[in-house]
Structure formats: C-alpha cells, structure tokens
C-alpha cells in the first residue's frame, strides 16, 4: 500500500504545483458555476420583467374602441396601420392586432427563443382576455345570471411528492449531472498527466524500473485521479451552493420566479450524504481507472485527450435522458448500467427515495466495473509495445 500511496502523492504534488491547472480545475468551477446555473435565469427574468413593464407600440387594424382602451390600460400604445402582419414581419412593431369577423389575430415573431415580440404578444392576449371576461360578466349580469355559472366546479392538482422531493426539484437531476461532468474533467487532468504525460516527458521508464508490481503503479495513478475528480466535484458543487446563496441574498424575488425551474434547495440527511459520497467515489474510481487505461494506451498527451473527449460525451449522453425519468418507468436493470446507475441513485438519494437494493446493486456493479477497468489498466501497462510505442 505504501508504494500505491507514494505514486498517488507524487501525481497530486505534480498537479498541485501547476497553478494554471489548479485554477482551471478547482477554482474556475467555483467561479463559473453560479454564473452558469443562475446567471441566465436571473438575467432572463429581469429582461422579461423590464420588457413587460415598458410601454410598447403595437400595430392595429380594425380594432374596436373598447379593445384599444384595454390595450392602453395594459401599457401598450396602439398605432393604426393598414397591414399589421407585414409591419411585424418587417420588424417595425414587436406585435400587431387585426380584428375581422369577430376574430382578433395577434401577430408576433413567436419562434427563435424568448423575444420582445413574445412578451408583447402575451401582454396583448392578456388584455384581450380581460376584456372578454369583462364583457361576458356584463352580458350575464344583464340577463340576471350569476357569474358562478361559468365555474360550476374547481379542479385542484395536489402534489403528493414528499417535502424533500419537492425541495430537490430539477436539482435532483442537475446535481448528479454536473457531479459526473466535474468528476470526469477533474480526473482527466491527473489521468492524462500521469500516463501519456509521463510517456511524453520521458519519466515513465524510470518509474517502471522501480521494484513495484504494475498493479500498484496503476492503482496509485488511479487513486490520484480519483482524489482530483472528487475535489473537482466538491469545487463544482461549492460553486453551485455559493451561486444559490448569492442569488437568495441579492435577487430573492427573481429567484422565486425564475429559480423555481431549478428546484428549491436540496436537503439531505447524514446517511444520504454518506451514500452520495460513496457513489461519487465509486464513480470516480471507475472513470479514473478507465482514463488511466486509455491514457497509458495513448502515445502522447494529445492522443490521450482525443480518446478522453469522446469518453466524456459517452458518459454524459445517457445522463441527458434522466430528465425523462419521471415520464417512464425506470426498469430495475438500470441499477447495473454504468454511470447511469450512479446518477439515478444520486437523484434518489437527493429525493430520499433510494432503496437498499438499488444502492447495493449500484455500488456493487460500479465497484466491479472499476476493478475490471483497473485490471484493464494493468494489462495495458504490462504490454511493452504499448508502453514503448511513443
């Protein structure tokens, strides 16, 4: 074990003495995650809010006086024109309204993301809807019919999710997703430097002449990659937590509106936290061993990176489908599917829905895959045509 730790120590010291590497792997995520997670949402909410409060001109044709008044009440300035549709298409007005034969047609550019046209069209539709409801109410009143006749009953949807599930929201998906990304990117830094980097720098041959079994060297390098991967994961999650705290402190109202999509806040008990750490550790062990094997196989730093980039995509792609885990029943065999099983378990641990069998199958299979990957790394190490092929 001494030689394993010795190798790990050397790899980590090498990495930690590279300031640029430390900055990009451990510090940058802390700074970037708040911006990445909360920046666009908060910015969008603010822009939409300002656009909604602004008084915009809208092109109108044939619109009755009562509707014009309703539009003005909704902070809009109706401008009579011949052809509202053409003018909106030309971009001279964010929205236009034409009234003919009892139909209000609202024109706006509705595709291409969130636009000013979408916001203004929303304002127009709300104003006309209010006018419609007012007129219906007046008509019913004239006939002596109570307004309640329009709503003979109410429909209420009740969320049966636990408080913990409600709290985690989309973060239950995003946290494992980002954790996997950070584990991969953090582990890669050490894995490449410790393998292809050693070959390229000419230091590997000296290490291979040390009186140590190859398994110790491979395990030492993998554990260093695991340590960096976990540190990178912690850095990324710290960035996320900092971003959340910052958003709650400086933009609580906006976070309440826009941040709802991101879920509220994650609350986990001690057991779940331990489970999350074990899951992250085993995932890092698996990915570390795979990356060390690939890195050893590569002739150079560049070649190693060209192997690891597709690996990252391969690992991340299945995670994207986890967004739909609530729509379809997740079969139990997914607990044996590498990476996906860890993400599913993490999601369940965040929500407090993890079962012991799910956890055991996930941890057991991930450990097995990690050991197989480690043996693969040793086999690569033992192949002289691979070790000396640069």
């Amino acid at each position, binding site marked *: 074990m*001494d*030689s394993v730790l*010795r190798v790990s*120590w*050397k790899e980590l*010291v*090498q990495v930690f*003495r*590279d300031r640029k590497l430390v900055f990009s792997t451990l510090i940058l995520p802390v700074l970037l995650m708040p911006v990445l997670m909360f920046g666009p949402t908060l910015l969008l909410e603010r822009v939409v809010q300002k656009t909604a409060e602004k008084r915009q001109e809208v092109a109108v044709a044939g619109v009755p006086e009562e509707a014009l008044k309703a539009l003005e009440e909704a902070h809009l300035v109706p401008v009579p024109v011949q052809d509202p549709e053409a003018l909106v298409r030309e971009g001279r007005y964010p929205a236009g309204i034409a009234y003919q034969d009892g139909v209000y047609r609202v024109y706006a550019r509705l595709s291409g993301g969130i636009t000013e046209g979408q916001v203004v069209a929303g304002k127009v539709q709300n104003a006309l809807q209010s006018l419609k409801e007012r007129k219906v109410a007046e008509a019913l009143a004239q006939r002596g019919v109570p307004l309640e006749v329009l709503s003979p009953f109410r429909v209420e949807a009740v969320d049966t999710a636990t408080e913990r599930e409600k709290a985690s929201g989309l973060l239950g998906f995003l946290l494992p997703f980002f954790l996997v990304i950070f584990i991969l990117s953090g582990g890669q830094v050490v894995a490449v430097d410790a393998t292809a980097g050693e070959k390229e*720098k*000419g*230091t590997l*041959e*000296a290490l*291979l*002449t*040390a*009186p*140590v*079994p190859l398994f110790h060297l491979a395990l030492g390098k993998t554990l260093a990659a695991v340590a960096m991967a976990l540190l990178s994961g912690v850095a990324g999650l710290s960035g996320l937590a900092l971003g959340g705290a910052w958003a709650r402190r400086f933009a609580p109202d906006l976070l309440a509106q826009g941040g709802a999509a991101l879920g509220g806040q994650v609350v986990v008990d001690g057991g779940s936290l331990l489970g999350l750490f074990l899951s992250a550790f085993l995932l890092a062990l698996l990915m570390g061993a795979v990356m060390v094997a690939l890195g050893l196989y590569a002739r150079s730093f560049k070649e190693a990176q060209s192997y690891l980039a597709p690996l990252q995509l391969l690992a991340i792609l299945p995670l994207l489908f986890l967004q739909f885990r609530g729509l379809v029943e997740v079969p139990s065999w997914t607990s044996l599917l590498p990476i996906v099983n860890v993400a599913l378990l993490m999601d369940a641990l965040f929500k407090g829905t993890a079962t012991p069998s799910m956890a055991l199958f996930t941890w057991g299979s991930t450990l097995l895959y990690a050991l197989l990957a480690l043996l693969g790394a040793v086999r690569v190490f033992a192949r*002289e*045509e691979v*070790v*000396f092929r640069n």
Partner: protein
Amino acid sequence: MIEVVGLTKVYRTQKAVQDLSFQVNPGEVYALLGPNGAGKTTTLRVLATLVRPTAGTARVGGLDVGREPIRVRRKLGLVNGGMRVYDRLTGREVLEFFAGFYGLKGKAFQEALDWVAGFLSLEETLDKRVMEMSTGMRQKIVIARAILHRPPVLLLDEATAGLDIFARRALLDFVKAYRDLGNAILYSTHVMSEAEEVADRVGFLHRGRLVYEASKEEALALGEGSLERAFVRTIREAA
C-alpha cells in the same frame, strides 16, 4: 553479475536481438557498441525487466529477469539518454520518492542521500525544482535516482545524449568511479570515443547479433588505436 545466454527478442516480425550472449563481471565496464537500431536498447530493456525476452535467458545478480523481475530491479539501476525525472518536484523529493520503493526511509534515506549527493556533487541543487536545473544537473538527478539504492549493476543506454561537454565529462568520470566501487556497468553507446575512455571490455552489436567481443586493448589493437576503425573493419568482414 550480468549473464546473457542466447538472448533473442522479436517484435512481431522484426528480430531486434538474435542469439546474444555475453557477461559483465563486478568491477567491469562492458561497452555494448553499435549504430542506431543494432539492438542495444532492446538488450538493456530486457535486462531492466521492461521487455520480456522471446528466447534465451538473462540474469542479473544470479536472478532471472523474466522470472523474478521485482527482485532483479532491486539489483540494478537504469539510465538512458531520454530519461527524465519529475520537473515540478525538487531533486530531494524525486530521490525520496524513488528511495521509498527500495525501503529507504527516514535515516536510511538520509544516509543514502548524503552518499549520492557527495558522490555526484549534488548538495547545492537538491532543493531546487528539477525544472529550474541545468541539463547537466538534471542528468545528475537521473543518475542519482538510479544508484541511490547502490545497485551492483548499472545499465547506461546512450546516457550522454544531449549533454553539454561538462555534463558529459562528469558522467564519464562517474562511470569510472562507480565501476571502481566494484559494480558491474553495461555501457551502451554509438560514440566510440566514450567507450575508449571508460570500457574494460567491448562488444560490437550489428543487426541484433554480437559480431565481436574482446578486451578494450585487443579491440584497439584491431583498429590500430581506434575503436571506430575496429568496429567498421569487423562489420565489413562480417558482411
């Protein structure tokens, strides 16, 4: 101390070394001479347990390199021209890192460090990071790493490649000094003048075969005072 009998190494279809036999005794520098591609590096890699022989045997200190690689590694040190050490560590850290693999820790490490630092005049550079050292100093750290555990066998493969005149001189002086401690040194090079200076015996390697072996004096006589002439004459006669 080194005993090679009928050694053959084949890479897929290419025979790198064929039926090679020689031995290096304690207190002797054996120069393995030949042009690039002659099989020198492969031979040293087999002895260093880095590649496995296809046929034949190679023993270091009486131990078979194929059967007992870990024990063999304890008995040897390897230095080659392209070998580097970790540039973000200090010289001391590099040596401490490798010393641990040989069980040299604490007081034992300090004693080994004092010896190697004195032997190679390293004292002033030990606490510098390798990246801040001159090429010659880096090569000294590479050598120090290889002999820190005082191996009775030292393998040097084109060890002066890329060194300036002072570093090269220091290395040749070191080879003689380490030989004088009673150690066996296999010195592989294509630079005949280096062999003329340090070797006790020479072997000419051509296309993986040992075509000539003699004491340095005999080889010099064959080449009328020049190992290079002796080498060329031998190869022409063999062809």
